[in-house]
C-alpha cells in the first residue's frame, strides 16, 4: 500500500465513522423519544394514526423519505394534532439536528 492509498483509506474511514456516529446519535434520539409512538407495528399510536390518515406507506416515520428537516423541527417543538410538543431540555438543538438527519428525505 503506497502512502497516497493509505492516506485515502484514512480519510474514507474517518468520513464513514463520522457518518456512523451522527447516524447513531439520530437513531438514539429516535429510539428514546419517538419510537414509543412511531415505531413499526401495533401498539404505537403515531404509527396507527398516520396509517389511518395518510395510508400505510406513510405510517412508519423511519421508512419515509418525504420529511423535510424544517417540518420535523416544527412538529417536534410545536406538536401536531394529537402529538405533544418537546422542549429543548428534552430534545436539545443538537439532538434535534441529529434526529432530522436521521429522518432526512434523501437517506439511503
Amino acid at each position, binding site marked *: 500500500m503506497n502512502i497516497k492509498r493509505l492516506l485515502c483509506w484514512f480519510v474514507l474511514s474517518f468520513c464513514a465513522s463520522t457518518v456512523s456516529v451522527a447516524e447513531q446519535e439520530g437513531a438514539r434520539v429516535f429510539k428514546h423519544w419517538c419510537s414509543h409512538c412511531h415505531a413499526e407495528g401495533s401498539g404505537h399510536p403515531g404509527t396507527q394514526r398516520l396509517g389511518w390518515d395518510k395510508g400505510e406507506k406513510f405510517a412508519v416515520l423511519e421508512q419515509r423519505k418525504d420529511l423535510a428537516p424544517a417540518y420535523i423541527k416544527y412538529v417536534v*417543538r410545536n406538536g401536531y394534532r394529537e402529538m405533544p*410538543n418537546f422542549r429543548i*431540555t*428534552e430534545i436539545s438543538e443538537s439532538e434535534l439536528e441529529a434526529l432530522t438527519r436521521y429522518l432526512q428525505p434523501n437517506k439511503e
Partner: protein
Amino acid sequence: MMKTTLPPGISKQTLDEALDGFAGVVGKKSVFKGEDIVSYRDPYAIVDDDYFEASAAIAPSSVEEVQACIKVANDLGIPLWTISCGKNLAYGGAAPRLPGSVILDLKRMNRIIEVNEKFGYALVEPGVSYFDLYEYLQKHNIKLWLDVPSPGWGSVLGNTLERGVGYTPYGDHFMMQCGMEVVMADGDIVRTGMGALPGNNTWQLFKYGFGPSHDGLFTQSNYGVVTKLGIWLMPEPPGYRPYMITFEKEEDIEQIVEIMRPLKINMVIQNAASIVSLLLEAAIKATRSQYYNGDGALPPSVQKKIMADQKIGMWNFYGAQYGPQNVMDASWSVIQDAFSKIPGAKFYFKEDRPGDAAMDYRSKTMAGIPNLTEFSFVNWLPGAGHIDFSPVSPTTGQDAVKQYEMIRDRSADFNYDYLGMFIVGWREMHHIFTLVFDRINPQRKKQAEELFDVLIREAAEAGYGEYRTHLAYMDQIANSYNWNDNSLMRLNEKIKDALDPKGILAAGKQGIWPKHLRDKKP
C-alpha cells in the same frame, strides 16, 4: 416575534432583570424565551392554546442552582412554576397556572442517585422519567420492578408528587414514597424523615423520622421545590400472570365492584386493577368514525359490533397475579369462581389474546414496563386532545353506577363519548373519565369545557370530589372541598403565607394562591 406574557404586577424591565439574574446562575443557554416558550404550552389545552402561557423558562442542573434561582425570584417577586419532566398531560402538561410565570424546568436534573436492590428502593432527581429508571434497572440487571402510570415518559418524582397511580401492587405512588429533599422559598434546604439525621442509613427505609411528618405537604402543593425523592420498588416476583375478564352488560359494573371489593381488601386481587369501559378499550385499536359517524351515544347495535370485532366487553377487568405458580393457581380459582357469578363473564390470560395491542400494553404496565400505547385512545377522534375528570368513588356497586351514569349522561348531552375506567385502590376507586375532545373545532372545544364544568358541579353535589385536575379547574375543584367554611383552604393559605410570603412558588397550584393574588385570580 412573540409577545411576552408578563406576570401580574411585574414590568418587562423587572422580568428582564430577573432573566439576567437567572442567566448568571444557569447560563444564558439555559434561559428560554420568545419562540422557545411554545414547547411549554399545554398540548391538550381546553382553553385557548396560549392562555396558560409562561413568560420564560429556566433550566437549572443542580440543587445549588435551584437555590440560587429561587433567591433571584424572591428578590424580584417573580412567580416560578416548577416542572419535573413536564409530561403532566391531560392536567396541563408543562404550562403554568399563572400566566406569565417563569417555568423552573428541572428536566436536566436527571440523576438516578441510588438504586438499592437489597431493600428495594430508588433515590431520584426530578428529571428522571420512568423510561430512564427502567433502562437503568435493565442495564444493571437489577431485579426490581417499577410501578408506572400508563404513559412512561413522565417523571418518577413528579408523578409521585401529583399522587399519580400505576397498576402493580405498588400502584399508589405516594404510599410508596420514602424521603424527600426540598428547597424552600427562602432558599433553605430540608430533608424529610430520617434524612434530617446526619449520617443516617435509613432515609429511604422509614418514612416518618421524628416529629411531624411533612412529606404530604409537598404533594399537589406549592410550598417548596422537591429536588430528590425516594421511592420503594417491588422485588421481581417469582411468577407473573396478567389476566382479563370481560363482561357483556352495562349494568354489570354494579356486581363487578361488589364482587371485587372483598377480593381486593383481602389481597386476593393483588394489584391496582382496572375496570375499563367498552369505548376506552376499543379506542386503543380503532377510531370512532370506523364504527359510527352520527352524533350522540353509539347505538346498541354499534356497541355490539365493537364488542364482537375486538372480543371485548362493555366492561373489561384487568388484573395480574404475582408470586409462585401454586399460589397464583390457588388465588386464580377464587377470582374465577367469584366473577363467574356474573352471566357472560369471559376469562383470558395473555396467551389467549395473541396480537392484541390492548392486552399487550396492559400486561406491560401491570409489570411496571413503561410504554406509551395507551395514548392510542386519543386517536378516537381526529385532531383530539384529552382532559381527565377523576372523581374518587367508594368501592361499592351503587356508587360506581351512580358516577358512571352521571358522567355517561352528561357526556351524551354534549355529544361526547364515555371513555372511562375505574382504577382500584384499597377502599376506593379513582374513576377516570377521559374526555377525548375535538380541539380543532372551537365550538366543540367550548362544549367540552362546559361539560367538564357541569361534571365538577354535579359530582360535588353528590359528595364526590376529584383526586387531581387540569390547570383550568384547580380553583373550582378546590372550592368544592369547602367543609366548615373552607377551613381546609384557610389552612392551606396560612401555610402558604408562612412558607412563601412573597408567593413565588407555583401560584394557583391546586387553588392555593399567594395573598396578593387571592382577590384577582387570573
